[in-house]
């Protein structure tokens, strides 16, 4: 049973719950502190970008200087001094892209410590060794994890991308976006900013101006990507913002599953992370995008932690295309994130599955937008918010059907679980139906673990924390099942860890 796993895990947890909080001592190359047009030029030059790209960035930067920080989310934090940050930091040893063998051993060690081995043939697994059985399959099937290609991003640069050769054989392009700009400029130019325009919102504009790296995926028509693709983001350098940009294009009839993981060292100061992810699915294509976000959440008193301001949007551009977002949000001091789908194609489908856990002083404001434009488009939202400690956890979502989105369908289930009486759980859904042929159903509940349930478990020998982990795993089950195998173990473990200290 998966639940027993979690319980055992919770038992063994050490006092320091954020186990990814170590720092890698590595010399870095910084851009001068602060933000101005020269910094944008500096980043673009470092990347050896074409002139149009620099122009695009400058335009975004200029737009950003005229924009105001959004205040509508239910999150509170001191004003960010954007001039007090570094916008570019790269390990000195990373002057030029290298093969795996030439990578600074300190970096390899960092990723190994994070459970992200970069040597090909190894696998991404939070707790399992290669080939070890997963205990997670509910049907009792033995599951061994498949291979995963990884793009490892360390601060502002991509360190390495694995399995590139094998992917290339299938015609799949998987590389850092910097490399894509050099090697596949036509593809990048065609799609970059086509889903999240440079001036879309405050953080997206900032990102467009200064993003330093990220992943690029192109799956050609009719190709089913032979392995899971993954990017692992690591923020290390002090006072440095991380601004990555991911662009995934699934051409007609193709399929790709992409995983994203994130961690950062424990620091007293807050770190800024403002990423943009754009997905494009053409006719009959499917993109499955999964995130396990575990940035440093700050300490129990709310000191430090990552400010995670992310714009993620998928465009179901083609008929019968499908984009599915699955997210597990356990980290970050502040999360501001709404992975969305524009359901443009006829009979296209969008899905959003979310587990958002907040503890300590964390503030989460997350949800999705399902914009129905195409006929017969459908969407499904399942959101599970768990608030503990003194945290605030908000689901914010929009489901809209355009007048021409005949027969659009949405089902939304949005559940909150509160643990303790010092936290807050909020639901802010917006529903806009502009055609009678659209059928929208929205349900939300808020609940707690009842005293009776708690007593029952404890009378069977579980500790309070074990009982909580058990309930929470049950509560999020629908969403957990959407995760690729490789992430489920890590996620269940994270849930236990994230809720440490939430009771008693």
């Amino acid at each position, binding site marked *: 049973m998966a639940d027993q796993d979690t319980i055992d895990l919770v038992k063994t947890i050490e006092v320091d719950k954020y186990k990814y909080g170590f720092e890698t001592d590595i010399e870095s190359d910084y851009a001068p502190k602060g933000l101005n047009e020269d910094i944008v030029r500096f980043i673009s030059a470092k990347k050896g970008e074409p002139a149009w790209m620099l122009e695009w960035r400058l335009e975004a930067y200029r737009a950003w200087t005229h924009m*105001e920080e959004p205040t*509508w989310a239910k999150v509170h934090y001191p004003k960010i001094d954007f001039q007090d940050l570094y916008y570019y930091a790269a390990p000195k040893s990373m002057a030029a892209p290298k093969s795996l063998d030439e990578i600074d051993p300190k970096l390899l060690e960092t990723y190994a410590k994070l459970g992200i081995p970069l040597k090909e043939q190894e696998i991404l697994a939070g707790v399992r060794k290669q080939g070890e059985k997963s205990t997670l399959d509910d049907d009792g099937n033995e599951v061994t994890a498949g291979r995963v290609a990884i793009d490892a991003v360390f601060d502002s640069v991509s360190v390495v991308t694995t399995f590139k050769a094998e992917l290339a054989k299938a015609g799949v392009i998987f590389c850092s976006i910097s490399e894509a700009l050099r090697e596949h400029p036509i593809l990048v130019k065609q799609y970059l900013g086509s889903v999240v325009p440079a001036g879309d919102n405050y953080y997206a504009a900032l990102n467009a101006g200064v993003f330093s790296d990220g992943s690029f995926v192109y799956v050609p028509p009719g190709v089913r990507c032979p392995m899971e693709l993954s990017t692992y983001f690591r923020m290390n350098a002090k006072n440095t913002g991380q601004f990555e940009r991911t662009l995934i294009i699934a051409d007609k009839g193709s399929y790709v599953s992409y995983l994203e993981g994130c961690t950062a060292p424990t620091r007293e100061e807050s770190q800024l992370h403002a990423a943009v992810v754009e997905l494009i699915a053409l006719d009959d294509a499917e993109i499955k995008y999964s995130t396990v976000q575990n940035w440093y959440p700050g300490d129990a008193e709310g000191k430090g932690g990552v400010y995670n301001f992310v714009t993620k949007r998928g465009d179901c551009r083609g008929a019968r295309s499908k984009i599915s977002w699955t997210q597990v949000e356990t980290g970050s001091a502040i999360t501001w994130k709404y992975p969305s789908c524009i359901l443009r194609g006829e009979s296209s489908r969008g899905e959003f599955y979310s587990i958002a856990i907040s503890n300590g002083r964390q503030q989460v404001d997350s949800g999705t937008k399902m914009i129905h434009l195409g006929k017969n488009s459908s969407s499904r939202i399942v959101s599970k918010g768990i608030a503990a400690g003194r945290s605030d956890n908000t689901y914010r979502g929009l489901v809209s059907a355009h*007048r021409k989105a005949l027969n659009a369908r949405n089902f939304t289930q949005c559940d*909150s679980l*509160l*643990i*303790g*009486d*010092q*936290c*807050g*759980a*909020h*639901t*802010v*859904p*917006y*529903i*806009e*139906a*502009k*055609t*009678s*042929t*659209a*059928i*929208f*159903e*929205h*349900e*939300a*509940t*808020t*609940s*707690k673990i009842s005293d009776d349930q708690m007593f029952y478990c404890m009378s069977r020998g579980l500790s309070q924390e074990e009982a909580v982990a058990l309930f929470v795993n049950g509560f999020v089950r629908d969403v957990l099942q959407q995760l690729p195998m490789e992430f489920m173990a890590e996620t269940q473990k994270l849930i236990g860890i994230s809720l440490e200290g939430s009771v008693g």
Partner: protein
Amino acid sequence: MSIALQPTAAEQAFGMSLPHRRMEEWRWTDLRARLDKPYPSIDTAVDEKSVARIMAASPLAGIAKYRAVFVNGKFDATNSTIPALLPSVIPAQAGIHLSIKENRVQSDSRLRGNDDGVDDPLVVLNTSLKPEGVTLHFSSNITVLVEIMHIATNAAPRAVALRNHIEVAAGASATIIETFIGEGDYVLSSVTELELGEGARLDRIKLEWESAKANHLSQVVATLAKDARLNEFTLTSGAALNRQNGTYTFVGQNADAKISGAYLLNGKQHADTCLVVDHKVPHCTSRELFKCVMDDHARGIFQGKVIVRKHAQKTDGKQSSHALLLSETAEFDAKPELEIYADDVVCGHGATSGDINPDHLFYLRSRGIPEAEAKSLLIAAFVGEAFDNVENDDVRAALVNFAEDWLRQK
């Protein structure tokens, strides 16, 4: 980005700025843009014949025993059926105290209905229009119905206002009806304060059947003391533009509020209900149920927020809003919001939007019921669930009749 906006003609006439779509609660109802001409506050000559005609046309005509009638914002003693407005005529023992207050202008901070120190724009507007109104005080179990009726006659475009204060003393109970009905082009601003004492019970039925050109802007501010019970139903079917705000605050434990409503809208009607139910204390129950029927190009909006404050444990709050869109061009928007700071609570909301269920329609037709009749039956059943909350049989029957007429005229 705050851009200083040039005051519109309506804003100049009101001497205040109007809420607009960049304000979160007004995102779907841009009042500033909708009120496209000045509505001055002017006295208009009353045409007695029109008043009599409009009164007789009220779907609830003749149901209430006591009636306070206002015409174009002014008290109308002749048509009011409260024998006189003096406590000596309705003795205190009878349990009803009523007084007419003229030009109540004080801006009561209690009417804010929020904690951010900003007065609600609808209350500010109401205050600026120097409203008249009644203060009703119920001190025992009153079984007769009391109606407050506002009639607008067809005169030049103008703004009229009403502010009523209804108090139900500890242990007392009452049923009141508020009717808004009229002809012509006007802005009607109404503020109703409801104060329920310990163990008090109030049934309130509101019928909004303003003129097709009218703008109906209303605000209810209710407080419920310990063990109080409020049962409210609003039927919204008139006015070109309707915005109804309500703030319901539990200040004593074990109180219960049932807030329900139905929309029957067609043409280009626009109705927006925006409710805040604030659970400040433990052990209270709130139920919101709205059934909205929109035909033609009508647009219905439901915004409901349930707040459960820290320590308001054992709160039971449920909210549901359901829309039936009868034409492809009708619209429904909803924002059912929960803001919860206590863990031992049961809260939830449900919202649906859609057309008549084709399976239901087929089933009825397979039993021989023609399509149009089957549709009417299904629409009536859809809104009927909300009507069921009206406890008074006469009022409920009259409202159901009104709904049936509305459906027939489709």
